[in-house]
């Protein structure tokens, strides 16, 4: 662990709010990427993001530093997001609304697809995947965790992570291709 981060952690454990604030600011992008990748943008993601740091705060005295703080926070964020997805399904089922996790709104196909819109589409596509595929794609492709780190965070064998990664990407492509054609990805990634 980085020395500065270690110092901040020690100060936060001793009750220094300023140190805690610095740690939150430092790791906010990591948690945001995980939670928004899993749940999509919006107040729900913000709530889960806040809850991630509150759980972290509560567990501060017990944090032994076995894993890096980033990995530790990502693990909390992923677990809370998966719980939220379960809760969401439960609420949907209870109120008999549309239970599909599929994209329920497609922007006008005639409009020019701008990069931001393509991003939104990919985000929607990601949301339509089953959580088990979504979580590996978020950790591996958005965060850039290695396959073994992803396996560690999700407590899965590496082989399972590899096969979920492959199947997740294939499923996402199947969702997006019929709507926007094969060149969507080029439009969305900013490398055109």
């Amino acid at each position: 662990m980085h020395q500065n981060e270690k110092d901040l952690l020690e100060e936060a454990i001793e009750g220094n709010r300023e140190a805690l604030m610095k740690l939150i600011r430092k790791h906010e992008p990591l948690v945001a990427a995980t939670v928004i990748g899993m749940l999509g943008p919006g107040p729900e993601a913000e709530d889960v993001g806040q809850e991630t740091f509150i759980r972290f705060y509560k567990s501060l005295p017990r944090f032994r530093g076995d894993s890096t703080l980033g990995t530790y926070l990502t693990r909390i964020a992923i677990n809370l997001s998966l719980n939220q997805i379960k809760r969401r399904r439960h609420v949907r089922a209870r109120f008999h609304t549309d239970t599909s996790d599929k994209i329920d709104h497609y922007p006008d196909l005639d409009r020019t697809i701008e990069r931001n819109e393509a991003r939104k589409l990919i985000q929607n596509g990601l949301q339509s995947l089953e959580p088990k595929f979504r979580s590996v794609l978020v950790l591996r492709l958005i965060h850039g965790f290695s396959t073994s780190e992803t396996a560690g965070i999700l407590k899965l064998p590496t082989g399972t992570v590899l096969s979920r990664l492959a199947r997740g990407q294939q499923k996402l492509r199947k969702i997006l291709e019929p709507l926007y054609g094969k060149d969507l990805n080029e439009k969305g990634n900013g490398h055109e």
Partner: protein
Amino acid sequence: MKRGMDMSKRIKRWLYHSLDHDLRPRVKKRLDAALARSPELRAERQRILSQRRSIAGIAPASFEPLFAERVISRIQTMDQNIDPFYEALKSAFRKFAFAGAILVILLLSYNLVKENSLNSEEIFFTADTTFENMLRLPLL
């Protein structure tokens, strides 16, 4: 025909795996050979890479502004609402509950060894407890 299809599936699987994990040298050699042979496979690889870049590019850098301040504010409210007496009671109860659970397990084990049964009535000394007995008890 089927064998050809299986082979193509396998190569596609290797193609995906090669982007996330080191393949075994023998497998890597076969994949490289297949890539060198097939323009379709090379195009497929480009499509996969492109999609991965797209996914990587969707991550927003942060939540709404002042996120850290909102978290700290929630933590402060939470800390203010913690009643020290209630917390002490909760922690003491946890110890009692734990000790009680251990005791039940010990009694169950004792019963199992001695009587060769797991009768809860005997463990909790309620074998003779009937509704009538319970009503009569205070009068005695």
